[in-house]
């Protein structure tokens, strides 16, 4: 047993100022290519979503109308969740995706053959295949930096500590405290997302404090790791294969030749 604790992120979106330093720092450190120069008109978000060439994505949500005093502009930096039960990793046929000693989920680019299975398996739409390159890419939780004892580039760059990196256990405690603090301050809508180890993916390695429902930020409200249902699925598949054999046998039984 190694003494290495599981490392992760707590992203406290209540203090995110939408500066996108995390997006840029991630690209700089990891040498991720530019992802298109498109004006989306979706508030200040011209990145759109996480993808093969965007491993941090800052969402911008404008809520309410200017006339009402409760107008809100929510900002939130999204990232791979480094799921406890990571569907991407489990379905990967080549073993390119693996779990590191830090409990994070990382693609080995020299192994991935671009089968695309992980893309369809991720319940968050995180990992994607880079078309020019053919392989799947996503946040590595800065595996190289972690090995050198550094915090990930995005967390390092975040000016307001919206992105907090640390031991997952500690982060969960800290996050609980933060929610309580916010709620005491009257921010009743503050909630944690992905901190619960009993959720559909066994808890996120990178979880969040949100100020509205997850889907408002483009996140699934009740993600489930698809492989949770795999035993059942295998059973059905075996039965189906058996049924196929039975059907063939029955077809052979007939009188006519």
């Amino acid at each position, binding site marked *: 047993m190694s003494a290495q604790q599981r490392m992760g992120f707590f992203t406290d979106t209540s203090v995110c100022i939408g500066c996108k330093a995390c997006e840029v720092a991630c690209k700089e450190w990891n040498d991720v290519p530019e992802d298109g120069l498109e004006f989306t008109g979706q508030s200040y978000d011209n990145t759109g979503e996480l993808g093969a060439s965007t491993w941090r994505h800052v969402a911008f949500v404008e809520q309410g109308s*200017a006339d009402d005093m409760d107008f809100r502009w929510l900002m939130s930096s999204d990232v791979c969740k480094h799921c406890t039960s990571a569907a991407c990793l489990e379905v990967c046929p080549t073993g390119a995706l693996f779990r590191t000693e830090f409990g994070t989920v990382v693609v080995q680019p020299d192994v991935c053959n671009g089968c695309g299975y992980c893309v369809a398996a991720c319940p968050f739409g995180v990992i994607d295949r880079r078309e020019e390159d053919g392989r799947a890419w996503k946040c590595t939780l800065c595996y190289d930096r972690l090995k050198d004892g550094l915090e990930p580039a995005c967390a390092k760059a975040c000016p307001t500590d919206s992105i907090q990196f640390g031991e997952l256990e500690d982060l969960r405690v800290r996050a609980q405290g933060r929610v309580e603090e916010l709620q005491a301050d009257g921010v009743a809508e503050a909630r944690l997302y992905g901190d619960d180890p009993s959720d559909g993916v066994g808890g996120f390695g990178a979880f969040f404090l949100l100020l509205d429902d997850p889907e408002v930020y483009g996140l699934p409200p009740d993600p489930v790791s698809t492989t949770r249902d795999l035993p059942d699925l295998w059973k059905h598949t075996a039965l189906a294969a058996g049924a196929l054999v039975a059907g063939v046998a029955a077809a052979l039984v007939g009188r006519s030749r």
Partner: protein
Amino acid sequence: MGSNMAENHPVGFQWVMEAKRRGARIIHIDPRFSRTSAMAHDHVPLRAGSDIAFLGALINYAITNDRCFREYVCAYTNAITIVSDDFRDTEDLDGLFSGFESESCKYALGSWQYKGFEAGAAAGHRELIGEQAHGAHGGHLAHGDPPYVDHTLEDPRCVFQILKRHFSRYTPEMVEEVCGVPRERFLEVAEAVCDNSGRERTTAFVYSVGWTQHTVGVQYIRAASILQLLLGNIGRPGGGILALRGHASIQGSTDIPTLFNILPGYLPMPSAGSEDDLADWIQLSSPPTGYWGHAGDYMTSLLKAWWGPVATEDNDYCFDYLPRIDSDHSAYAALLRMDAAEVEGYLVMGENPVVGAANGKLWRKALGKLKWLVVRDLVEVETASFWRDQPDCQTEVFLLPAASHVEKSGSFTNTQRLLQWHHQAIEPPGDCRSELWFMYHLGRRVRERLRDSDDPKDRPVLDLTWEYPTEGPSADPSAEAVLREISGYRIADGTALDAYQQLADDGSTACGCWIYCGVYANDENQAARRRPGSEQTWVAPDWGWAWPLNRRILYNRASADPSGRPWSERKRYVWWDDADGKWTGEDVPDFVADKAPDYDPPEDAQAEKALRGDEPFIMQADGRAWLYAPSGLVDGPMPTHYEPQESPIDNLLYGQQSNPARRQRARADNAYHRVGDERFPFVFTTYRLTEHHTAGGMSRWLPYLSELQPEFFVEVSPALAALRGLRHREWATVSTLRAEVEARVLVTERITPLRVSDREIHQIGLPYHWGENGLARGDSANDLLSLALDPNVQIGEYKAATCDIRPGRRPR
């Protein structure tokens, strides 16, 4: 107010977030709902260009509701001072102060003086060219006090009463009419600010170019200063008016200026005709009381730093070598001369005026009349490529590649006057060179050329001290050697100076910038100190070095009461230690260390010695902060609401529409819109986005930034979109008499129409980062703007003008 701190100073904004976490209330007053508003407790939208009405009303609120910090005001400000009988206020003259000369559109400043000073108050010539002079000149202050004062603040001619009358018409109702802020919202802000000020609490104002870029910009800051002084929020922790500055070392480039009218350390540049020798200069620049009383020491040391052994008492320390100002040589004045073909060559170093300065079209036209242009930049900015669109252009353009900040060592002076050293990380690629390299080797080669000249006009160049050790493969001059010279040394033995008090006017010291004296104390680069915050006190004195003398809060003597005790335990910062007989505290006291609170200067005392022990504002001749500025400003001793050069409405406060002293230049290629011009019914303002930097040279060429904001866009409210048929994400054309630009439409609730003067006023927001080069390309918002300038500092009115907007692309 007037700052979008979260977007433009995101790293500094972490401390606002920290304050918020600890319970501070954040209020953002800005025409638009920005990322800063999103983080604030309250966002109060107001009409661009109306802040003085708002601040004036806060001042009026504090005075009429008796919410001032009276002890502070009486003891530390010039509220008590009696003003000249000749002074007439805007109350009397419908928006003008006394002394206005309509012919020249300038003020004669004599009548604004304190009573008893009128006779000699002839320092006006400096102000006429927009230059700040120091102190109240023309009369001697006994005991640091002006001749006529009223400690009861009752005298109708005392500053406090004048101020009270001046701002009496700035009511919540007026705010509603002028700013478009409902009075209840205004009152909420007023209450919050007053509640949070006084002995136990302090309020800070943060501003930036949302305040400065107006034809009456300097007075915006004055208005805030007055309010903060009335509330006792200056010189105390958690208080202040925090100017968030621009480029990484823009503070440094004002301290050691790239401006035509000041020398390092805010020493005024001598003027032609009236300052023939050093004595004249000292006479005008060095009031007998306060720290400017040492201006002669600072100037002599500067001259010694520049001309070394050649500068002697006999030749007035080469004072003659300094240029003299004959007229306005600021950037826009130079532009107009260029356009008149009076300028042959122009050096642009790290600037992109074709995109970044008002009236881009005029810039392109004027640059095309130069014989030669040198642009030193990281990329081929539009200022270097303008000629490509001018087939007949004869200008020879030299684009010289510059080394970026990571490719050279040096210091950045930030907003807090903090110098932080940065070390070279990599060698510059190819022919890229640092500014130091360029200036040093250029100077070296020029001197080489002139070596045998006997023309006296070449002497200043030939006599310069121009020896610096060079290092690295490109023979870059050592930045530390330059810093050491700036910090100062003793001529006799070359040892480094520790403090500006050591400077002398007898030629025994050299110092490139007196306020930076000590940054190389103990022969160590103090700016390179990096002790982590966790290993020192909360003031963190061992991180970098702040001028002057590593003081982190200026005028911090004001954090203690007149007797030297902290105003409150909660806000204690610097105080008098009776036992030790000196000032002590969290910070380096901004005061003579052993001057007791009850110090009473002898009759013949000079400079700081002439200020009493309870007068904290040591740079002022009277040791007091000025609620009313008898000199130093060219457009009035108190702020007054004027409408921008271009406004949809009449000035509701006075007959005078706009700042009467503003600089304007009406001509065909710089035409202005009249008030209420139906063709240009909307207000527009320009600003920045986190994702880009100013004129774009450092962001539009970078893929990681360009993808974040790829196109020029215009922010409009849903109401305006409906009114004009603008479609989200599609094109719109914004027009003024100067130009038409096209941009993508971003319809957003973050922009709100305001009810102003019984009308619905629509505001339009335009980020100004784009130009035709780079990866993220687009039209430049600055093509829309005109030259209309603040008269004090020649800053352009980028923040409020009028325009029209229509769907579709602009005609080609």
